[in-house]
């Protein structure tokens, strides 16, 4: 059985409309017989068949426009004699071919680059100058910029206008450039908006809440601080940060970066401390290697970060370094804080206010200091089970403040 297909009749024929069948099923045909009439953009053309045999079935009705190559009829050829007759196939869906599509040559290799004339070799002795675009030259001239000092970003290292613009900006605002993000509250807000929007867009957050008894921490802090001058006293904040850092060391799924569709657990634990300043500034610069710092060191570093934050001297690298973030709004009085993860991190731990609450200890009800601790985590990387373990670990660590 062979198919008789809509023939290509010309270089620009893509489809044809069958207007008349000149044969019917059962007719015998031989090579060269005209079997149908096809309407093309040039007019009606009779089409011939190149097989010999019997028309088994007509597949396409008249008045239908079909692409070149579409099967129009089935022909039972001599070689089919004695074959078991097959049930006629269900109507073959007509594949649309994109306009102008040509079956690719069987052995065509992907078109390689054609040899181009070699780039002009400058004759020896001709002066070799750095490349500077006309637009760059003009701008430099207008603004008194020294071209020699500029590194180009254009084709083959050419200095283009944007390079000169950047250089100009760098030199005239050099002083401003030393003061970082901190003091430009507008820029900071824009950055926060962008980061938070992206976080909510891209990161599937899940949220867990854990009530942690920090009575032991308070007692320990009270006794420790009693023997220290004020400037060396520790705050609850360093205990919570340290416990998060140690837990993050154990639970790698919460300490790292999700980038390019993959999670990369971080080798170190740099806990970002969310610090807010008057006026609306907010950033979470890193306490580097927080898991290995002593509480005193953490305290010192925290004080330093806060001071620098207020002075607007946080470097953007310090924020980018954070592998997990801790945010505490306890002093503001909120019971719990559900944070939004700072991408590309994958977790943020929130601490609410430490509140004295009736609590059951060893079967008896007594007042205990409880802090609601939350975990917002990236469900692409971890799930609730791991999150619960992570939070539980934080809770466990906070029961032994002297070991932090």
């Amino acid at each position: 059985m062979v198919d008789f297909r809509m023939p290509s009749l010309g270089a620009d024929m893509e489809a044809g409309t069958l207007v008349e069948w000149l044969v019917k099923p059962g007719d015998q045909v031989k090579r060269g017989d005209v079997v149908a009439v096809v309407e093309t953009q040039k007019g009606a053309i009779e089409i011939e068949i190149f097989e010999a045999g019997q028309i088994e079935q007509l597949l396409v009705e008249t008045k239908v426009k079909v692409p070149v190559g579409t099967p129009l009829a089935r022909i039972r050829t001599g070689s089919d004699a004695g074959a078991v007759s097959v049930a006629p196939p269900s109507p073959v869906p007509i594949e649309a071919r994109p306009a102008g599509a040509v079956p690719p040559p069987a052995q065509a290799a992907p078109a390689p680059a054609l040899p181009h004339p070699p780039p002009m070799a400058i004759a020896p002795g001709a002066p070799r100058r750095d490349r500077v675009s006309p637009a760059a030259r003009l701008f430099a001239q207008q603004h008194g910029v020294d071209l020699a000092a500029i590194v180009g970003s254009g084709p083959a290292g050419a200095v283009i206008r944007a390079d000169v613009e950047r250089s100009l900006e760098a030199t005239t605002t050099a002083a401003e450039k030393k003061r970082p993000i901190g003091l430009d509250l507008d820029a900071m807000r824009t950055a926060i908006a962008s980061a938070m929007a992206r976080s909510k867009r891209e990161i599937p957050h899940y949220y867990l809440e854990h009530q942690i008894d920090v009575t032991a921490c308070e007692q320990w802090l009270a006794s420790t601080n009693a023997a220290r001058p004020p400037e060396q006293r520790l705050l609850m904040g360093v205990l919570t940060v340290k416990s998060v850092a140690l837990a993050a060391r154990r639970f790698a799924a919460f300490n790292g970066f999700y980038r390019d569709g993959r999670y990369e657990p971080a080798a170190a634990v740099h806990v970002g401390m969310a610090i807010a300043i008057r006026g609306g500034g907010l950033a979470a610069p890193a306490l580097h290697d927080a898991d290995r710092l002593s509480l005193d060191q953490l305290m010192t570093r925290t004080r330093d970060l806060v001071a620098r934050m207020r002075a607007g001297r946080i470097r953007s690298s310090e924020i980018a370094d954070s592998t997990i973030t801790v945010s505490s709004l306890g002093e503001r009085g909120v019971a719990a804080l559900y944070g939004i993860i700072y991408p590309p991190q994958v977790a943020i731990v929130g601490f609410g206010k430490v509140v004295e609450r009736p609590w059951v200890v060893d079967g008896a009800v007594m007042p205990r200091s409880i802090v609601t601790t939350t975990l917002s985590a990236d469900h692409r990387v971890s799930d609730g089970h791991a999150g619960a373990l992570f939070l539980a670990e934080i809770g466990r660590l906070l029961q032994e403040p002297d070991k932090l």
Partner: protein
Amino acid sequence: MTATAQPGIIELTYRDAVREAIRDALRRDDRTFLMGEDVASYGGCYAVSKGLLAEFGPARIRDTPLSESGFTGAGIGAAMAGMRPIVELMTVNFSLLALDQILNTAATVRHMSGNQFGVPLVIRMATGAGRQLAAQHSHSLEGWYAHIPGIKVLAPATLADARGMLWTALQEPDPVLIFENVMLYNMTGQIAADAGPVDIDKAAVRRSGRDISLITYGGSLWKTMEAATMLAAEKIDAEVIDLRSLRPLDDATIMTSVTKTRRAVIVDEGWRSGSLAAEIGMRIVEQAFWELDAPIGRVCSEEVPIPYPSHLENAAIPQAPRIVAAAKAALGRS
């Protein structure tokens, strides 16, 4: 042609030089012959072939009927069958009647036949304006022909080139078109008495300079040299490049010059739009953009069929003062 006081140097016209080139070719190679309208009995429309009929006979200096397509095609066929014909199309204006044979046969046979047949044919044509011959007799279409792959296009502007390019062209296995500007035929100069074949693929620096590259060919060369002299009086040192070959273009010479001077003005007697000057300008942008200190300029014929009265004709085609003005504009001077 006359001898001069210097031994071995003769004085002659451009016309004489071309005639000598033809004579030399016919003497050296008996496959060579000249064919065209009025080349034999009349002695050539521009008197280039005067006297050759008597020397070589009617089979080799062959008058043709006014059948540009027919005899250009015949030249192609003869070349394919082993001869080395020189077809003379009286002017580029009439060559349009033979354009089909030039483009669809001469330029394409090698390719269409898969390299089985080549066409070693030379076609000479007069070209250019300046004699008040009006619109149909004043074209400069070298740029059109330089557009076609498969042929070579030459524009001899000096006596040495008029004398020496023809023989080299006849050795080419592919068609070569030689354009002789009508304003040059009367030009007088001196060459060596034994001046012979010259190369046909390199441009020539006719005047070395530092401040600007003036790139030109054919009849415009001498106006450009005149412009260079005028510029020198204003302390502008122009380098003048004579392209000599329009296809292929000698990019290396052009770019070396532009790299040195950082400015270019192209002088081309074709109409400005879509001119050969546009092609050269684009090549400079592609290959020497970073060397430029100014936009590339061009001086071409104005967008008008060439008019009859001399003041209008002169205004229509490139002249030295316009070249000077364009050069000064490139230097930011007015």
